[in-house]
């Protein structure tokens, strides 16, 4: 049967759905808050039913009915196999190497996939202070596949972040090895409202692999403060089906905790 693509979806929704496509049913995923939470729960409700979530605050393999507010929302332990501790999740699963995918976000992401969630300006004298690492540094250091969902704005994509909170490839293909990190060549995938980029392990730099429907490479350049390489096999992100949009709105985020721009579900 031919797919019934929806023509009624927001950019946010497609970002979440596209990110979810990188998750397989056999993956163990550490959840973060925001759109990543939407993407992961969407994956679990559609193509990746076997997926197993862990959450930094200590929840191991919960069955989340809909998106929680934060990683410490009491709903995060819903029907979990174990409600444990932060050490059990970030230490005994993430650091131990038993988690396949981590979701991260931040104020800045640079051409090497480094993330800043600490501050803008001189770190000893910050002009703007953000929350800080949380579990992100540990996840970026130890997990072999990192997914990032973010708005594509110039200020968010500098050539070099002002503070590396969570390391990508640091300064090039061997940056992580030189720094002493055990996972030397992680996959890093960035899904924005303009495109999908991933790290080319041979250069240690982000490369545009797909464009969002209707977006041009020039638009990506105009909104990025470095010039990303462009894949010779450039693709276009597949739009969501009507069914996917329905699941996203009605089951994953019915209260519009994260999907702010899309219409409310009638109740």
């Amino acid at each position, binding site marked *: 049967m031919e797919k019934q693509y929806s023509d009624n979806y927001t950019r946010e929704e497609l970002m979440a759905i596209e990110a979810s496509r990188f998750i397989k049913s056999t993956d163990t995923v550490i959840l973060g*808050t*925001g759109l990543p939470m939407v993407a992961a729960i969407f994956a679990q409700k559609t193509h990746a039913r076997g997926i197993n979530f862990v*959450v*930094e*605050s*200590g*929840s191991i393999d919960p069955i989340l009915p809909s998106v929680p*507010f*934060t*990683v*410490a*929302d*009491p*709903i*995060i*332990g*819903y029907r979990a196999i174990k*409600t*444990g*501790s*932060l*050490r059990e999740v*970030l*230490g005994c699963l*993430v*650091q131990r190497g038993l988690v396949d995918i981590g979701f991260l976000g931040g104020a800045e992401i640079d051409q090497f996939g480094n993330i800043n969630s*600490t*501050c803008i300006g001189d*770190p*000893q*004298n*910050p*002009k*703007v*202070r*953000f*929350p*800080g*690492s*949380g*579990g*992100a*540094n*540990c996840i970026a*250091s*130890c997990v072999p596949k990192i997914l990032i969902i973010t708005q594509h704005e110039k200020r968010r994509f500098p050539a070099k972040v002002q*503070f*590396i*909170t*969570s*390391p990508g490839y*640091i300064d090039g293909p061997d*940056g*992580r090895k*030189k*720094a*002493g*990190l*055990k996972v030397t060549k992680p996959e890093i995938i960035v899904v924005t409202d303009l495109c999908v980029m991933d790290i080319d392990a041979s250069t240690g730099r982000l490369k545009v692999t797909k464009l969002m429907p209707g977006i041009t490479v020039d638009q990506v350049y105009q909104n990025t403060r470095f010039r990303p390489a462009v894949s010779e096999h450039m693709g276009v992100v597949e739009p969501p089906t009507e069914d996917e949009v329905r699941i996203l709105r009605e089951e994953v985020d019915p209260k519009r*905790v994260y999907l702010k721009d899309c219409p409310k579900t009638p109740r």
Partner: protein
Amino acid sequence: MSKVSKEVKVMSAQEAVERFVFDGAIIGIGGQNVSRCAVALAHEIIKQGKKDLTLTGCNLSIHMDLMVGAGLVKKCESGLGGQGKFGATFQFKRAIEEKRMEAEDYDHLTMVSRFLAGEMGIPFIPVRGLMGSDILNYQAASTKKKFEIINDPWNQGEKVLLVPAMEPDVTIVHVQKADEIGNVLIQGIASHEPELIRASKTTIVSCEEIISTQFFRSNSDYTTVPYHYIDAVVEQRFGAYPTATYGYYSFDADHINYYQQCSRAGGEEYKKYLDEYVYGCETFDDFIEKCGGVKKLNHLQREMVRLM
């Protein structure tokens, strides 16, 4: 003689803070984000004006922000300061930007590892994170030595990052259940608290209810932390409000949003919040009453029931 005691440790929040919290103390704080923050104990510390505090933990949220906003904190040493979906901890953010407070950044696993070293009585511990990040390149002026990188003695050519043990002077946590002598049961996610409590020189625990020691003796696998580490047990229903306590009540998004509005505005508006909701409430029960009392709490309890 060790400090371990099997005496009855039940006391009021006022007495516990008077006895165990002191000016200049390093205070471990439990709770994370919207869950089980030790808000009642934080209120008491603010009312007693304990100052020059260092706050340490993983995700420091509203209870940290209140103490920072009251001008009592000189340094935060943690994984993060924030309230997730509810936004920044604005007092924390502003105090750093205006250089009224130092921030010593680590990440969550490093902090919990430092507590793990503390609880086991060892001086430092290796972690796999932080290498290659700027977290290592900057430290607070007051920090003596943040980390050390050595060659792994057992694996040639590999580097190992060591971080120092952290043993807070006093930890404040809010839990579901404790008995009179300080056996503690944490339900739901435990965050960094088991390690934090055991690493601390003293711990004040507030709880939703005091249960019998016989309960622990009959269900000993339910003991999250035994009495050895606890110095004061404060019975305080809704002691984490406006954050949630799993099994008892959900968080109050309205009050947290109101707090955020005041904290973001700062100045007079924030002072008004503290005056009305902290200094203006003789007891934490008065604060709960002011926030909607039984009716509000019944509602939050029903929300929790729906989650379970």
